[in-house]
């Protein structure tokens, strides 16, 4: 596989703050790669180590151990100004005393490029983010969304090999954030630059990424495409963090290949994809949209009786919150039920069906 050079390769990258042995481990032995021209996302809750990882890539912090290679070359001994990567900061961090054009041209100027080249590239970048009209303004005269575009142009102007984005959309309001998702994705395709994007917003990650690395407690939990991560979570953390889910305590009745027969309180014996590594007890995961209130092709009966506690109507989705006889909650997001003329009344008992392929068995207790 030597002919394939990845944009980034991380080998057992570790970052400890304070004492190397007993200090706070912000990142424990992260190993993964980012492909050339990929939109790669680091996804995790706050404190998961995603920002630390980004700062290690940018060169604002140094690794405690491990190796980071940028297109095959180790870079951990280089300081930030020597790395051909640029960053879009969470709060944009535009230089307040410079005009928009000066901000965008700063990187090229520091690289000692001729003034004419800088000016031409600045115009090109301002056109790319549709900010030409603002070239002589100051950052304080711009809205958040506009500052965001300038920050993008500034980071893209020196043609970095990898663009790092630190939660760049988190300061924007919802509408703008959604519009910017598409724009960022298009920008990545247009420039052909590898993007490494940090976010805590799983929807953002699923919508934009080619691949996602899910982090928690300084550990990479899973690396994969959005579908893979959603449909085949590697562990309970990922299953819980990405999307909505139901978790049920179950016993393993039998195993065959990659599947296991499981049974839990109030549910039928069902077949589940087995990720429990031989444990005799575990947690069954099934997503609300894989549960239905009627039988159908490819569905198996999941629970004989569930009592409707409440319905949550969101326009494009309707979720019934139900309780199994032992009190465990089961959320059901049934498309047919949404289209039904009349909602099911509270207190009524329903029969629950599941997509046969959907249930998944994990080791350990759910939340």
């Amino acid at each position, binding site marked *: 596989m030597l002919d394939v050079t990845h944009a980034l390769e991380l080998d057992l990258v570790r970052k400890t703050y304070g004492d190397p042995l007993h200090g706070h481990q912000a990142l424990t032995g992260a190993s993964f790669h980012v492909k050339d021209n990929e939109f790669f996302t680091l996804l995790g809750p706050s404190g998961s180590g995603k920002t630390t990882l980004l700062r290690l890539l940018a060169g604002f912090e140094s690794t405690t151990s491990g190796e980071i290679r940028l297109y095959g070359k180790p870079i951990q001994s280089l300081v930030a100004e020597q790395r051909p990567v640029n960053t879009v900061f969470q*709060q944009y*961090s535009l*230089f307040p005393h410079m005009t928009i054009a000066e901000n965008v041209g700063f990187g090229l100027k520091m690289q000692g490029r001729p003034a004419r080249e800088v000016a031409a590239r600045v115009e090109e970048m301002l056109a790319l983010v549709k900010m030409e009209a603002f070239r002589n303004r100051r950052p304080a005269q711009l809205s958040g969304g506009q500052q965001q575009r300038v920050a993008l142009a*500034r980071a893209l102007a020196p043609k970095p090999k990898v663009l790092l984005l630190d939660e760049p959309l988190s300061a924007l309001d919802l509408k703008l954030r959604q519009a910017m998702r598409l724009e960022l994705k298009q920008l990545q395709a247009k420039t052909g630059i590898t993007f490494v994007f940090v976010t805590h917003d799983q929807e953002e990650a699923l919508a934009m990424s080619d691949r996602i690395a899910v982090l928690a407690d300084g550990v990479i939990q899973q690396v994969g495409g959005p579908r893979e991560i959603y449909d085949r979570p590697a562990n309970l953390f990922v299953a819980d963090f990405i999307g909505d889910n139901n978790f049920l305590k179950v016993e393993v009745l039998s195993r065959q290949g990659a599947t296991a027969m499981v049974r839990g309180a109030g549910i039928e014996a069902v077949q589940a994809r087995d990720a429990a590594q031989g444990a005799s007890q575990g947690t069954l995961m099934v997503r609300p949209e894989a549960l239905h209130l009627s039988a159908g092709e490819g569905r198996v009966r999941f629970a004989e009786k569930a009592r409707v506690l409440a319905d949550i109507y969101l326009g494009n989705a309707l979720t019934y919150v139900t309780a199994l006889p032992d009190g465990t909650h089961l959320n059901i997001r049934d498309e047919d039920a949404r289209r039904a003329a009349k909602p099911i009344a509270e207190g009524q008992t329903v029969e629950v069906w599941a997509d046969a392929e959907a249930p998944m068995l994990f080791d350990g207790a759910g939340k």
Partner: protein
Amino acid sequence: MSTPANQGKLAERAGMLPAALFVAAFLLVPLGLVVAYSFMPANSFGGVDPGFSTDAYRNVLYEQRLDGSFRLSAAYLLIVWRSIYVAGLTTLIVLAISLPVAIYIARQVPRRRTFLLLMVTIPFWANILIRTFAWILLLRDTGVINGFLTALGVISSPLPLLNTTGAVLVGLVYTFAPFMVLPIYGRMERLQQSQLEAAHDLYANRWQVFRHIVWPAALPGVVAGSLLTFIPCLGSLIAPELLGGGKQMMLGNLIYRQFSEARNWPFGAAIAVLLLVIVALIGLVQVYLARRKFAGKVA
């Protein structure tokens, strides 16, 4: 019409009244007196005689010979020049010392910042006379520094430290450093760490980060600190008097002498007016530069 808005304005103006009265009574009236005295004949026992005279101002540039004729004299101009020179040099030294200190403090964790700022202001807790006398104890021929160097055998006879321009500078720098540290710190505190990182990220080395990010951010603080240092230095009295031994006379000493030993109030008043004019000119230049910068931003 009495709308709530201009009622508010009225209340605001009424609130300004005590301060306005105070300024009028204790600043404008005495200042008017100073200007008035400078245009009156001197009474040889101190004070002024009624009448109008420009003698005081003529005395700044001319000295009267025994035969009553006038001759151009640079003696007082030299004092004006020395005042500007010493105040300017003090400002530069204070800036060189305070800029790194302010930057350093601003980069500490908040608790440590508070502590270090307290350290900076500690000299204010002691009276300036006492602090200046402390410098005499350090600098005089039998003082701590000469004593130490003699004991070490570095020197055989004491170095002339006291009663020099250098001693005056030391005293002034020591007195005014906090006035530079605090305004620059105020600017540096607001400079986000991520801006420095952004500059590094965009290929700026340490010097370039200082030149393009830190210095522009500090500049308003530098201007404020420089004015707070230069202007009081110009008229400073205690340091040149005690550390300069009265030989390195500055405007402050000159004014003081005219009102005490020399008993030439109009001349003292004229020098005070001269000092005021210099300060006002500096103020005007500053306003002009600030306006030009502001205009540049809008255009």
